């Protein structure tokens, strides 16, 4: 079998042109299926238009589109031209995230993109974008690639060492890193996932996660298209508005496999009412995969109990660990079993970095397993000095993997940190027991909200613009929000004294600025007097340290009163 993504896809097309390839579920629950022949013909028309815009093999094509049919088609079209696709998240609330223009400009410059296909809502940025770099073409809206002649596009066959795709991942300077994936590494990731999930042509995958996230892109779109598995897509917005659509859609399309970050399970459990689910049966869903953010035991158990009456089986609840640097998933719950979890001693975990099993109780913490390594992959746990640790000891998760990225584009320092000999260092903290990987956190503090990852140092630049704060004297961290199944963001900052502003207005400014610069919503802003943060700690461990103080309730005492200072 070929180890080139496009060749694999074309083999499926030739094999079964009349079979269902991809279906799109509308917000009112209707599914429109496209056969392989139709989906490829439509994409070929768009590929012809891309070629007319100058896009060719090896060029970068940036897609900034909502995850709907046009995005899926444009993505396939870009692959058909032999270009390197790179997907960037468009804004959910239009006009609310001004950081997008900056991220897009930097991405375009950094990758020397030839073509950008953007959502119509970005038209207002057109002048700014077009001025910034000569040689990049921009087209806007769902009809921008209409009218191309499909017959002009002949199948491409990139080499196994050519770039298959680029993927953005969280960075440390307010700008995402660009992961570079080679063709044969992407195919290796897909083969590993096929083996671990034991997918076959009788399966149907259902995806509401965005295509710009590796869960949507690799675990669903690439995996299904390269292996002839029908894929149903629902837009992330439609899912969040009415989570019951996910469960109804699984039932009506006979889907067998689906993915979601933890928060998706939490909001579905809360929001989907019985009257939305009349007649829904989920017995045929053999895998609900949970990945991409911390997995809460309570969330998974609540989902299981809430929907058991609809046929959700305990052994269908699965977990996974993966990262963009590994292209796809690395560890998976066994196909025949339910996810694993264990209770360990809280103090020993925090202070000795050891996971000692203990009965549930006040001093115990539940850790959810992320599965066992996919075929051909090994997981190692490394000490701070790089020594391999035995079972039950917490350290950095490193992968010996056939699907490792080549590196980060134009970032040798970060690449050297991640690729260490024949290992990929993930920056995640965990331990192994009986081959099962248990994820416990990050080496560097990282905020993870709704599956989106942020480095606290990203906040520094944005906060510099807020008048009244002491520069650099802040901590930002995520606090688990069990109710919503994700994290909420807390920012603590020292203020300048004497403070000439209203404390509440200053806190509002902080929220507003972080929303504009980073597109994130801060749930709590805690303003504290000079000296509160600086006296105690500094450097990389600051965010983690203050997170602990916050959770113990020791920072809140220093809160400035909500009144004019």
């Amino acid at each position, binding site marked *: 079998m070929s180890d080139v993504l496009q060749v694999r896809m074309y083999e499926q097309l030739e094999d079964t042109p009349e079979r269902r390839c991809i279906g799109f579920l509308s917000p009112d629950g209707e599914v429109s299926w496209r056969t392989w022949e139709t989906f490829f013909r439509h994409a070929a028309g768009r590929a012809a238009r891309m070629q007319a815009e100058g896009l060719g093999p090896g060029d970068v094509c940036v897609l900034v589109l909502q995850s709907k049919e046009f995005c899926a088609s444009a993505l396939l079209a870009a692959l058909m031209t032999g270009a390197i696709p790179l997907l960037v998240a468009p804004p*959910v609330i*239009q006009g609310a995230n001004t950081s997008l223009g900056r991220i897009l400009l930097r991405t375009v410059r950094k990758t020397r993109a030839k073509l950008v296909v953007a959502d119509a809502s970005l038209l207002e940025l057109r002048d700014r974008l077009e001025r910034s770099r000569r040689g990049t073409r921009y087209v806007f809206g769902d009809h921008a690639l209409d009218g191309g002649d499909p017959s002009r596009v002949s199948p491409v066959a990139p080499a196994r060492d050519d770039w298959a795709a680029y993927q953005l991942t969280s960075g440390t300077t307010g700008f995402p890193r660009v992961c570079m994936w080679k063709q044969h590494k992407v195919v290796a990731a897909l083969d590993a996932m096929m083996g671990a999930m034991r997918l076959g042509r009788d399966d149907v995958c259902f995806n509401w996660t965005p295509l710009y996230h590796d869960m949507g892109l690799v675990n669903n779109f690439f995996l299904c298209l390269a292996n002839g598995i029908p894929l149903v897509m629902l837009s992330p917005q439609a899912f969040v508005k009415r989570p019951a659509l996910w469960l109804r859609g699984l039932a009506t399309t006979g889907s067998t496999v689906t993915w979601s970050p933890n928060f998706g399970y939490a909001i579905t459990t809360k*929001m989907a009412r019985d009257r939305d689910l009349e007649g829904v049966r989920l017995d045929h869903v053999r895998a609900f995969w949970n990945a991409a953010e911390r997995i809460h035991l309570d969330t998974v158990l609540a989902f299981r109990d809430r929907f058991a009456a609809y046929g959700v089986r305990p052994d269908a609840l699965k977990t996974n660990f993966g990262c963009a640097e590994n292209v796809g998933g690395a560890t998976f719950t066994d196909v025949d079993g339910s996810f694993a979890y264990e209770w360990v001693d809280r103090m020993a975990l925090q202070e000795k970095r050891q996971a000692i099993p203990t009965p549930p109780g006040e001093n115990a913490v539940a850790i959810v397993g992320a599965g066992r390594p996919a075929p051909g992959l090994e997981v190692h746990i490394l000490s701070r000095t790089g020594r391999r640790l035995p079972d039950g000891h917490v350290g950095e998760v490193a992968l010996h993997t056939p699907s490792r990225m080549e590196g980060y584009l134009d970032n040798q320092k970060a690449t050297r940190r991640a690729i260490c000999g024949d290992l990929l260092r993930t920056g995640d903290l965990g331990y192994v027991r009986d081959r099962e990987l248990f994820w416990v956190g990050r080496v560097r503090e990282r905020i993870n909200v709704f599956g989106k990852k942020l480095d606290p140092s990203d906040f520094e630049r944005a906060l510099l613009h807020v008048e009244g704060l002491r520069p650099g004297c802040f901590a930002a961290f995520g606090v688990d929000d069990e109710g919503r199944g994700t994290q909420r963001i807390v920012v603590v900052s020292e203020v300048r004294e004497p403070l000439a502003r209203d404390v509440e207005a200053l806190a*509002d400014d902080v929220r507003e600025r972080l929303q504009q610069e980073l597109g994130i919503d801060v749930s709590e802003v805690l303003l504290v007097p000079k000296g509160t943060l600086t006296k105690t700690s500094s450097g990389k461990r600051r965010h983690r340290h203050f997170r602990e103080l916050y959770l113990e309730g020791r920072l809140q005492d220093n809160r400035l009163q909500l009144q004019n200072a």
Partner: protein
Amino acid sequence: MEGKTSVPPSSPGDGKGDDGSIEARIKSALVKSLRLNMDPTVIPSDVPLIGKGLGLDSVSVLQLVGAVEETLGITVDDTDINRDLFQNIQVLADYVRHKLAAS
């Protein structure tokens, strides 16, 4: 950020006289869909929904839109989900009234 849509003056916040009004139904949808632990009538109609004020994140905004669509029987186009629409409940209510009149 200044709003671009003009908002007619009203009696924000007192909750009086808007029982059964679009504003009241939006407030009740807001409290229910986000499981806020508060009495909907105490939410002022002029409090910003995103950024300042209630500080809803994008996921909460979509949950609110879903609840408003359902309780008021309208469809909010994705292209209408912009910053201006969530200036406050009053603006959102005006939008809903416009949608209802057009349907």
